[in-house]
Each structure stands twice: as structure tokens, then as C-alpha cells.
């Protein structure tokens, strides 16, 4: 007769703990990528015509720690994070590659011309093949890839100076060791 009481007490304890976690800033909506600590999926994306550095393939990600940023000229939140990416590139903090997701090359190029171009390589992904392989849920999303080409982190949403300082910069410093 006391069994239901014990089960409920255990459940309530779990709820209480979760409630404390959530108030402490642990967002239950964040589900990390299943690709964490796995090699960046194989892809070979075409370049935006006329850009200096060419398209993006998996092989390009080996050799040094880099960011891969999924964006689109149609994406409002990408506009929000863009100044931060431009600043990171200006200070040469980390190479940033772009994946132009579901976009027309002219639109991507015009957007970069207008807002600044922080990217090393940019690959086109007009049919979402790369986005699907990466499990992208929405733009912008940014992957931290280590020197071996392994995904170490995925950030969902715009990168702000705050995100850079508290999450990405420490992780990158650690990966470079």
C-alpha cells in the first residue's frame, strides 16, 4: 500500500531537481547533435561563383580548428550574428567556413557584398543535402570542427559576443592544445 507513495516521492524529487536545473539556466529544449565527436559528414559543395577561396569539402576541414556556419541570405537571425562573425574574422581568431543553405548564389553573393564577407570557404547547399547530413534544424547553426575534422560542438542560433566568449573561445583554445 505504500508503494505508490514511494514512486510518487521519487518522481517528485526528480521534478524538483529538474525545476532547479531549469531555473539555473539548463534549457530542456536544447538537444545536442548526435554527430558530436563524429567526423564531419562527407560532402563536396560547389563554390559561389567568383569567390576567392572556392567551395567546401570535408577534406578542407582537416589541419586546423575551424567553424562551419550554416546561413542563408533569407535568414533574419543570420543578419543578427553576422557582425560578430565579421569581427572574429577581422581579428583572425578562427577560420570560419560557410554553408549557403537553400539560397541562390547571386543572392548569397549580394548579401555578403552588402554585409561583409567573414568566410574562408563557402559551399552552396541549394537542395539541403549538406544540411540534412548535418542534422541542421534551422539557420543559423554553427559547428566547431577540430583539426582532425571531428565535430566537437554545435551551436544553435546566432553567435553573439557572449556566446563566443563563454562557449566557443574556451572550447577552441582547449582543442588547439
Amino acid at each position, binding site marked *: 500500500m505504500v508503494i505508490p507513495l514511494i514512486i510518487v516521492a521519487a518522481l*517528485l524529487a*526528480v521534478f524538483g531537481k529538474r*525545476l532547479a536545473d*531549469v531555473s539555473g539556466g539548463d534549457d*530542456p529544449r536544447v538537444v545536442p547533435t548526435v554527430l558530436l565527436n563524429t567526423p564531419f559528414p562527407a560532402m563536396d559543395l560547389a563554390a559561389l561563383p567568383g569567390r576567392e577561396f572556392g567551395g567546401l569539402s570535408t577534406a578542407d576541414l582537416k589541419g586546423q580548428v575551424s567553424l562551419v556556419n550554416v546561413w542563408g541570405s533569407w535568414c533574419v537571425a543570420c543578419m543578427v550574428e553576422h557582425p560578430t562573425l565579421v569581427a572574429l574574422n577581422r581579428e583572425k581568431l578562427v577560420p570560419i567556413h560557410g554553408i549557403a543553405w537553400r539560397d541562390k548564389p547571386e543572392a548569397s553573393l549580394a548579401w555578403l557584398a552588402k554585409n561583409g564577407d567573414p568566410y574562408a570557404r563557402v559551399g552552396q547547399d541549394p537542395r539541403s543535402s549538406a544540411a540534412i547530413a548535418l542534422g541542421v534544424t534551422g539557420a543559423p547553426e554553427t559547428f566547431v570542427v577540430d583539426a582532425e575534422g571531428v565535430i566537437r560542438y554545435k551551436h544553435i542560433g546566432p553567435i553573439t559576443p557572449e556566446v563566443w566568449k563563454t562557449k566557443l573561445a574556451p572550447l577552441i583554445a582547449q582543442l588547439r592544445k
Partner: protein
Amino acid sequence: MLIELGHFALALALLVAVVQGTLPLIGAHRRNTAWMAVAEPAAIVQALLCGFAFATLMHAYIVSDFSVIGVANNSHTAKPLLYKITGVWGNHEGSMVLWITVLSLFGAAVALFGTNLPRSLKARTLGIQGLIGLGFLAFILFTSNPFLRLNPAPAQGNGLNPLLQDPGLAFHPPMLYLGYVGFSVAFSFAAAALLEGRVDSAWARWVRPWTLAAWMFLTLGIGLGSWWAYYELGWGGWWFWDPVENASFIPWLTGTALLHSAIVVERREALKSWTILLAIVTFSLSLLGTFLVRSGILTSVHAFAADPARGVFVLILLAIAIGGSLTLYAVRAPAVDGGGVFSPISREGGLLINNLLLTTAATTVLLGTLYPLIADAFELGKLSVGAPYFNAVFVPLMVPLVILTGIGPLLAWKRGDLNGAFQRLKAAAAIAVLALLATVVLNGGDIVNIAAGGGMALAAWLIAAALTEWLYRVRGTDGISWQRIVNLPRSAYGMTLAHIGMAVLIIGVTGSTAWKEEHIESLKPGEYIEAAGYRVTFVTAKEVRGPNYVALQGEYTVTRNGELVTTLRPEKRNFSQPVQQTTEAAIHTTGLADLYTVIGDADAANTAFVTRVFYEPFVPCLWYGVLLMGLGGLVSLSDRRHRIGAARRIAAGSAALQPAE
């Protein structure tokens, strides 16, 4: 001014709840009739005060009084009147006032209609009801006050989430609350019976109509929610195993179990402590749903704005209500049990298996819903549990349940005759096999169609078995008599209707799962998509204006074998207050299947539009099934044994309710 009166009324209601939650309970303990007698007027005053508070809030929404924070945040002058009214419960604070209003109305209903209840049981039931009200009134007044003013008042409000501006959703929350909160009566009766230390068939008979009413409302409420998700979200599905959906479905499962186990208590005075436990658990699960939806600890598409401070308050309420009632259960339940042993092959044996299957199903759904949370708490990693889990565990539990639902009613109480039941069900079994064969012959013998055939066979079995049972009841040695058809108790008809409704629902689930077609293409004018023999041709798209939105409306002609069937106009609405897009699917229904179209974004040249066409066979059966189940509840509720005195019922009813031998 009116809104302050409403606020004041709710504060007064809190004080009344203190009185209602203490004096009658103490009075019942001390056998003081004067103290016990306080319960009824207190419950009625409580309902009047909460009803008045709710009315003032509704008034503020109707006249768009933006000096009230809730109205400013959730309403807008350009909104149609219906959605100004439904905006009252489209937000956390207002929905809690609806919650407490429904609770107090149930309390008043027990006070007014429970005339044949023993005095102390009634006082205790209303006392517990008062304590629940006390907890929630404190919750509203201290953490979620909808009566707060805003100074200066804005000239215009923020508007209601456009997804909620929909007739399906307008009545979904009130129905759901009538269900959730209705189970509070069963809970209070259970706690009162534990305090009394006595559970008997009379108790079961008193609880039954309240359980039945709550179950009926919950059934319709879940059905409305599913219907809304189906046509409003534009995903072409009707059930997503979302945590919030599950939060309403779990108490439905245990409530259904309660409905059946209460019959065993009424007829055989067995399963008493189990039934008490179910009554406690069902309402506790309703409270748990409220907590999960409002605390932000689970992720869902339609959660309220999460606020951990409120979460703590509800968690404490939960601990007191569930912890308290289960402690009472642990202490007192051993005293109420008795009459226990019975044959497995009997009506009560069947009902027991029904209960085991339903509660197992409820547990598995609960486990799947809470698992991400438990994993989070023990840092086992973040994850989500989706439809594959639920389908894999739920369906295997439902199959034996449905088979049993066909057999159970044909078994007699005490000692059933399984062979006899099988003899009578030969025709039903043959019909089920025919349904399986017909499905496979008509659609092909691959695994999907064999599974679908199994689903159709189950549905056919259940309908045939329910009709067989009815036939044996109305047929005597002289054939079927009109007299017997009329005299059969309404509760028997209620059961038959609800069971057939279940079968119809299974047809909908099976058909829409197995044979759904989904096509997505970008269409230019003149281009078409073909689905299930229909050709959906895109004609044009234009901009149309509604009262508080601008919509892109597509025009599609639907033809079949070259003949025009209908013209569909799906919309994509852009609301400005607040800024949000909603999808309005256009649905052509034949009554047995739906052709469902959704218009999406245009391409860069603005000539081609992404069009989704779903062929949804048998989806209407889902709604028919839900309606039939609700109707079954209503018919059963109107049974005369719920209205007349206990002594007469036992004399008149027990013979009539026996299945024909």
C-alpha cells in the same frame, strides 16, 4: 472597478475555501452535524464567487480593457468577439481562473445533486474539494494573478497567439478542464471514503456518474484538440505523442480503467482499494499534466510560457495533494478491502484484465513522456522520446484489450462461461477474419496491408461483438422483442455505443496510418499533383484580408476522372498582432476520407508555390469514434439508476443488468 470586484471575489473565495476545507472535515470527524452542514452552502458560495470572478475577467476581455495586464498581453480590439472570449483562457493566468471556476462548479454540483449521500461522506467529499480549491486559489492569487492592472494602460493589446484563434481550440480547453477537474470529484470521494473507512457498492454508485461525466468531457476535449492539430497545424497528422497531448491522454487511460473498476465495486464489492487508488491516481495525473505544461521542465510545441517560480508552487501543491492522498491510502486502504477473491473467467475477471492493460498502457505512456526528464535529472544525456517508442509499446497493449472488450460483456458475473461466450462470438470472429481478408485482397498482401487488415479485423470484431451482446440481451425465447429493446437500461446502450465508438476510432487510426499519401511539389498555375485518384490542379494564388490578418490564398481545383469535385482554397495567414503565420489547410471530405491541401512559400519569381497534398483515408472515423464514445458516456449518464434511490435500484436493476443466459 469591475475587475477589482472580481479580484476581491477570488480572495473571498479563498477564505470560503479555508472554511469549506476545514469545518466539514472536522465536523465529520467529531460527528458534529452543524459543522458538516457548512459544506453545502460553502461549496455553492464558492462557485458563485469563482463564477463572478471569471465573468469580470471575461468582461474585461470583451470590452478590451487594456489596463488589465492579461488583457493587454493577450487581446486586441481587432479580434473577433469569439476569440476575445476564448482569449480569457488562452493564457496561463486566465486558464487557471477557468480551472478553479470549473472546480467550484463541480463542488456546487455535488452539493446540489448529491441529495442521497450520507451526511458525513458528503461533508468529507466537499471538504476535500474545498482543500483542492484552496491550493489552486492560493496559486492564482499569489503567483498567477490575472486581475493585476497596468498603468498607464496601452492603447492597444498584443493580441492572442493566432494559432489559438480557431473554433476547434476555442472549446478544447474548457472541455479538457471539465474532464481533468471532473476527476477531482472522484478523487474527493475516494479520499472521503478512506476517511470514512468504508467503501461499498453504494459508494461506487455515487462516484460513477461523476467519473462518467469527467470521462466524457475528457474524451471530447482530447478529440477536439486532436481535430484542431489536424487541420490547423498543417502537418497532416492528428496525434504526435507530444508531452502535452500525453498529459491529457494518461488520465484518460486511468480514468477509463476507473470507469470499469467502479462497476466491479458496485456489482461485486471487489477491487475496492484498487478503485480508490485509481481515483486518486487519475486526478493526480491531471494535476501532473498541469504541472508539466506550466513549469517548463518538459519541451512541447504547445506549452504555456514557462515560469519556474510557478513550477515550484505547483510542485508543492502536487506533493501535498498526491502525497497526502497516497499517505491516507497507505494508512487506511488495508481497512477497506475485502470481498477480494473471484474467478478469472467472469465479468469481473475481464474487467480486471481491462484494468491491468489500461494502467500498463498509462504507465508506458507516462514513462515515455517523463523519460527525457528523468534522463536529464540523472545526467544520462539529453534525448527525446518520439512516436516510434509509443507506437511500439502502446499498440501491443491495445490489441488484447480490444479483443477482450468484445468478450467481456458476454461473460456473466461471478462465474462466466468462456465457451458459451465463444459460441456466441463465432459470427463476430468470422466477420473479423473477413475484414482481414478483404483488406488484404483489396490492397495487396505486403506487411503494411496485413497489419492494416489486422486493425480492421479488430474494429470489425469489436463492432460485431458489441452488436452480438446487444442482440442476446434483447432476444428471448420468443425472438427479439420491442419491449426488451426499450427496457434495456441506458447504461447498457451507453456501453455498446462507447465500444462501437472505440472500434470506429480504430478504423480511423488504422486507415490513416496505413494508407496516408503525402505529396509535396512546387506548382506553377496549371500544374497538378495526383493523389488517390484525385487530381489537384493549382489555378492561382491571391492575397485576401481577414479581420486581423492578411492571407495568401491558393485556389486549387480538384477533379476525379476528369470531373470537377470541388475547389479548395488553403490559406497561409499572416497575423500582425502578434506577428505570426498560421496554416489553414483546405480539406475536402467524403465523410470517409479527407483530401487535405496546404499552400506554402512561393519561389523567388513568385509564380510557383510549394503545395502539399495529403490523402487521409478514414481520418473522419476518428472524429466519429470520439463522438460515439462521448455519446455513449452521455447515454449511460442518463441511466435511471443514477437518479433514483439506491434501494430501489438494487431491487430493480441487478436482474436487468445480467447478460442473457
